[in-house]
């Protein structure tokens, strides 16, 4: 579980996060949603430690991230997997080498065991075997996301962060990636935090949703509660399209 307590973050005079508190629960797909510029990416980067917060606490199962020294942060990060918006695969390595990288860096197992683990992760994300020897540039965007998920779970992380996992993907592939993240979260009991403004994902896998509006946590709930909320900013954001308005009306 990750607890965010009274977090403030400013960039110069721009006060981005204002006293944000939230709980990201273990074994659930926790989603941070909000309009562009609302502060959701800053919140996620602050939780990971890529931004140093001005005030507050970020506790990973009781361990306060801002209090840690760099060496302690690095050790904590070995428990963290991350899926980046653009996949962030190492383009000089093959698909298999990408998944093996964290194992070679930190695991103390034999080479064969590392290969077995990497192949297991690639199979778990349903990646065809013929793609293992290909470079990231030779596979599709959806496959790149799957490789990134395989790399993120290679070291059996306790926490998984996904930044806009569906960005640039077609609706069908987005659904597959969402389902994959959801399955992996439940299967391995991971605390998953997803930063998204894809409403399909929110409705599909949002078990714990945190809505950020102008740097403030404006609402927290799940994908069932969201149909019965009278928060104006949330309704404007989530049910902006005619389709989602109809979905909301059908659910009420």
């Amino acid at each position: 579980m990750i607890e965010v307590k009274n977090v403030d973050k400013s960039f110069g005079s721009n006060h981005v996060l204002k006293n944000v508190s939230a709980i990201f629960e273990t074994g659930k797909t926790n989603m941070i949603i909000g309009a562009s510029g609302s502060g959701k990416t800053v919140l996620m980067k602050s939780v990971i430690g890529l931004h140093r917060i001005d005030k507050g606490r970020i506790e990973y199962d009781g361990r306060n991230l801002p209090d840690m020294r760099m060496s302690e942060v690095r050790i904590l990060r070995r428990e963290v997997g991350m899926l980046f918006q653009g996949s962030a695969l190492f383009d000089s390595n093959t698909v298999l080498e990408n998944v093996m990288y964290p194992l070679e860096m930190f695991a103390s197992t034999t080479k064969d065991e590392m290969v077995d683990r990497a192949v297991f992760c690639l199979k778990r994300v349903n990646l065809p075997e013929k793609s293992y020897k290909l470079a990231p540039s030779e596979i599709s965007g959806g496959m790149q996301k799957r490789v990134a998920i395989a790399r993120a779970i290679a070291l059996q992380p306790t926490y998984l962060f996904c930044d806009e996992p569906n960005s640039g993907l077609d609706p069908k592939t987005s659904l597959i990636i969402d389902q994959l993240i959801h399955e992996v979260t439940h299967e391995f009991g991971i605390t998953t935090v997803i930063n998204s403004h894809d409403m399909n994902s929110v409705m599909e896998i949002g078990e714990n949703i945190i809505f950020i509006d102008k740097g403030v946590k404006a609402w927290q709930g799940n994908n069932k509660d969201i149909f019965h909320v009278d928060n104006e900013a949330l309704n404007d954001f989530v049910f902006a399209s005619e389709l989602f308005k109809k979905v909301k009306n059908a659910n009420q």
Partner: protein
Amino acid sequence: MKRVFTKPDRWKMFFRQFPKELEKLGLQSLPIVVIISVFIGFIMTMQTKLNSSNPLLPVYTTGLVTRDTLLLEFSSTILCLILAGKVGSNIASEIGTMRITEQIDALEIMGVNSANYLILPKIVAFVVMMPFLVIFSMALGLTGGYFVGILTNILTTGDYLSGIRYAFVPYYVFYSVIKSMYFAFIISSVAAYYGYYSYGGALDVGKSSTNAVVNGSVLILFFNILITKLMLN
């Protein structure tokens, strides 16, 4: 700087990267070193001969001037200025692209010291490779000078060889090699700095690459004066 020069997270990964960098930064620079050195040897010999036709000058003048120019400045300073363009832009654009495509963030999230993992093998490999490139350049330049003298019939073999052997100071080779190692450090570290702190998009990586080459070149010229003053005075 402190994050770069720390003990690698895994020596195995360092020694896997190191030969790749030796090949990429050193061996792949050989073609340009060969072309530039041979042609500078050609032109140095021709220009010296054409501009020293006074019968009072000894016959070994051309070989002597060609040798000392190559040993003291060309094969270290000028070669490094050229490599600042080739290697500097390569390092800055590679690391810069990794930065803007979030590959460096991915390393950091995994708990890897990205500065150490990416930059240290490049600096060490280039510093190690540079003396070989410099000595190779010296040999090629002198050989080029010899062949142009013979082929254009402006020099005899004896005149040229006596010139390159006359009053030879072995310390000049040592001075040149040491100087070039400092320059290799400057080229790789300045380029890595600009690449690592790139932000934005492709245009910004291009700017980082240009800044790496320009600033690396200026620093080479500045340190050339400093090192020459320290080592030759």
